[in-house]
């Protein structure tokens, strides 16, 4: 369904330009699918953002359904925060368009101010109002409601985020995690259709981060609120995001589920960025097998390249197992004890190195030669 509606959206938007009147077929498609295209909660098409002369967002498209939890994941400087700020209305866009529920809110000549977009936002530094109590912070966005009604809503949200009895406190009297919860409650109070979260857990310590991420996910799901959040931490993205967009150089490289990003990366950058692993050199023997320094490996699908094509093979640490019988020998370059497992860095004959995650029951030392075998369910190959 997602791919289908995306295709329709593409047609619908591409023809909106110069050939609108010339092409009756496109006009027909546009007319008949308008209803479907309108279903998108958030609909970004070919958006460009620029700071002075630097292009930060370079032709990004993104489509979100109501109720979806989505995540933009990428290294710092990839433009993900800019995307979020453009959606919120703080960042003007150079070209392309942003639509919320079918309503155009940003284009090269339109910029609906943030307060008129009906979005919620949770900021990286929480941005709680220091001069207002927790309850008044939550009630800030509830205008046109009686004091009684506001108090009721604030109490309900405090309960939702598990902070009853904190309403009279001031932000500086709360811990980081508590401030985070209040920021979430405040953003949820006006019942936004879409919640934007900018690196929401980056100011918290690791343990708290994971617990809060799970909590926030549960809260959002219970409210049925769609959320788009931005992070550079893949574990956070895996916990929170039903759909994850991996961003690089101002574009979404892959928009997919966590498991697909890990096992079916669409391109080299995604393979490298998500999870651990190494790309090693190889050569296609035939459509179903590839010759590598670790032997000839069977591939679980057919690749269309000619035999003998130079390729790179992605090997995750759990793809390589230590095996006494194997006659492929590797020297251990480094070992990192992780508790249940040990992560070994192994040197191959051609100078490349690979990672192998092995149970820590058996311990090997650096410099030792061991036999290894490839045991890969999903093998990803990129043409060199």
């Amino acid at each position: 369904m997602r791919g289908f509606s995306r295709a329709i959206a593409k047609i619908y938007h591409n023809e909106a330009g110069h050939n609108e009147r010339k092409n009756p077929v496109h006009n027909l498609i546009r007319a008949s699918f308008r209803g479907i295209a309108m279903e998108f909660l958030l609909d970004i098409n070919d958006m460009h953002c620029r700071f002075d002369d630097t292009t930060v967002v370079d032709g990004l498209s993104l489509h979100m359904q109501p109720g979806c939890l989505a995540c933009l994941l990428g290294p710092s400087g990839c433009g993900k925060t800019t995307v979020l700020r453009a959606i919120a209305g703080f960042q003007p866009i150079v070209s392309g368009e942003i639509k919320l529920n079918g309503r155009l809110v940003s284009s090269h000549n339109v910029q609906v101010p943030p307060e008129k977009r009906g979005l919620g936002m949770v900021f990286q530094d929480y941005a709680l109002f220091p001069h207002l109590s927790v309850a008044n912070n939550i009630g800030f966005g509830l205008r046109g409601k009686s004091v009684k009604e506001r108090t009721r809503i604030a109490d309900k949200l405090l309960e939702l985020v598990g902070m009853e009895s904190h309403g009279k406190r001031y932000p500086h009297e709360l811990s980081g995690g508590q401030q985070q919860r209040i920021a979430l409650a405040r953003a949820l109070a006006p019942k936004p259709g879409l919640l934007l979260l900018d690196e929401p857990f980056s100011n918290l310590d690791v343990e708290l981060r994971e617990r809060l991420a799970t909590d926030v996910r549960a809260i959002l799901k219970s409210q049925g609120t769609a959320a788009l959040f931005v992070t550079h931490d893949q574990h956070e993205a895996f916990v929170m995001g039903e759909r994850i967009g991996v961003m690089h150089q101002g574009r979404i490289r892959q928009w997919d589920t966590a498991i697909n990003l890990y096992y079916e990366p669409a391109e080299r950058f995604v393979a490298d960025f998500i999870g651990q692993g190494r790309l090693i050199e190889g050569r296609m023997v035939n459509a179903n097998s590839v010759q590598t320094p670790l032997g000839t490996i069977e591939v679980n699908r057919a690749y269309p390249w000619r035999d003998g094509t130079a390729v790179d093979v992605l090997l995750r640490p759990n793809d390589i197992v230590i095996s006494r019988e194997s006659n492929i020998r590797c020297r251990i370059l480094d070992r990192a004890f992780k508790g249940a497992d040990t992560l070994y860095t192994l040197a191959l004959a051609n100078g490349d190195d690979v990672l192998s995650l092995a149970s820590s029951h058996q311990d090997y030392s650096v410099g030792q030669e061991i036999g290894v075998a490839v045991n890969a369910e999903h093998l990803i190959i990129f043409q060199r």
Partner: protein
Amino acid sequence: MTTELSVNAGTLPRRSLFHRHGWHIATMALAAIVAMPLLLIFSGWLQAENEVWRHLSETVLADLVGNTLVLLVGVMLGVLLLGVGLAWLTALCDFPGRCFFDWALMLPLAVPAYVLAFVALGVLDYAGPLQTQLRSLFGDGVWFPQIRSTGGVISVLVLVLYPYVYMLTRSAFLTQGQGTLEAARILGLGPWGGFFKVALPMARPAIVAGTSLALMETLADFGTVAVFNYDTFTTAIYKAWFGLFNLQAASQLASLLLLFVALALIAEGRLRGRARYHETGCRSPQQRHHLVGIRAWLATLAAASLFGLAFVFPVLQLLLWAWEVVRNDLDSRYLALLWHTLLLVSLAAVLTVCGALLLAFAKRYRDDAVNSVAVRIATLGYAMPGSVLAIGVMLTFTGIDNFINALWRLFGNAASGQLLGGTVAALLMAYLVRFLAVAFGPIDSGLGRIRPSIAEAARSLGAAPRELLQRVYLPLLRPGLLTALLLVLVDVMKEMPATQLLRPFGWDTLAVRIYEMTSEGEWERAALPAITLILAGLLPVIYLVRRSGHDAPSPQASPREPMNKSGRRWV
């Protein structure tokens, strides 16, 4: 473009000129108000030299330059010695009474220089009570230092101005942290080596900044040198205007004084270099060096005698004098004077704070080249001595009057003469120009503490710009606005030379009253307005003391920044 207030309309191209350039118009207007007097003063050199100027340059100019240089060097040495020395004592050492002197040594900041000057003269001069008493005890031959001398002027100015150096250096020492000094000790320096090679160089930007403030005040000073009959540029400007009624000669003298100011500013920039006051992250409390025995008591004696001379002595003497005259002088005329002063001062403060608020918001919303240059020009006025500024404002208003009159005549009406020149408007403009920077400082730093995300959060919660201002900015800025208001209020109240030159008939202030009384040698009758000024001046000083008592403010407020329950925060 990512501004919070400027993006008002839904669509961009239809926004009006004012929408797009509103902030530029505002900042450039304020910059023009500040720049106009300066430009007009220097444009005086374009006109042919006149007789009076030639006379001035042949007779008094060499004296003026010499006197000014002597004064500058003397005050500089004095404030460095007292300011840095005392800062070292209270920040890095421990001696009996340190906790008290730590803040008490800032109090002389509340005493205007001209007040200490006339108190010193009144008590210590030949005819004063002290020398009379000494003569009656030891006969006529008793020697006493001549107070009405270069040394006397310098001493008075040093006693009043050293707190600038003291406050900045003290907080520099306090924020250096124990770590750097300990690192110096580990690397082989003794305690004195550590002080001279590490603590002092690290505090250099603060020392230079404090000294430069003191020297600016010295250059701008009119009241002190007038009381002592010590000729400097400010008194010469005054005489050229009121004695010779020659605005042009006055403006040429003013431009020379401005050259001195410019040189001082350049020197400050050079000396400070690229260093700024910066704190190292750690705020481990300084472990103070415990002075013991005679040294400890010598330290106490030094601090006490300075505090006594600079604060206790003038305040007690003024109270004594005021007590003598209070029954006669505290009449309806004095209350009217007080009322006029308050009215003028409040008008000026509100006007200046509004200007500063506009500048600060413009800088926040549109931090582009135009605005940053405009803001820099608009905050230059603090460097202009009051007498120079008065000349510049006078020239500006004369120009405006001439223009209006010319227009008037064009339509066939008779010229109406002076329109705005002698009005309160001229005085208010002078105060605005001079104190815009004073108000801008606390407001700008207050605004800087409001993280942009706070404003963005309000907007994402549906607050339109006006609501944002009312519900977020103004409540959060309140402490900064109050500081700015208070500082300008007291500064305007103390301001003497510009008020003296520009005030319309009947608009006397406390400072003008003090000048009138002291120029006739009626010390007792100047005491009542003087003590009023000191009491008013204590308000911002106490405020500053409380602020510096807490550790130095951090540039960015962290979410957990300490603040009391009402949300009030010391800026």
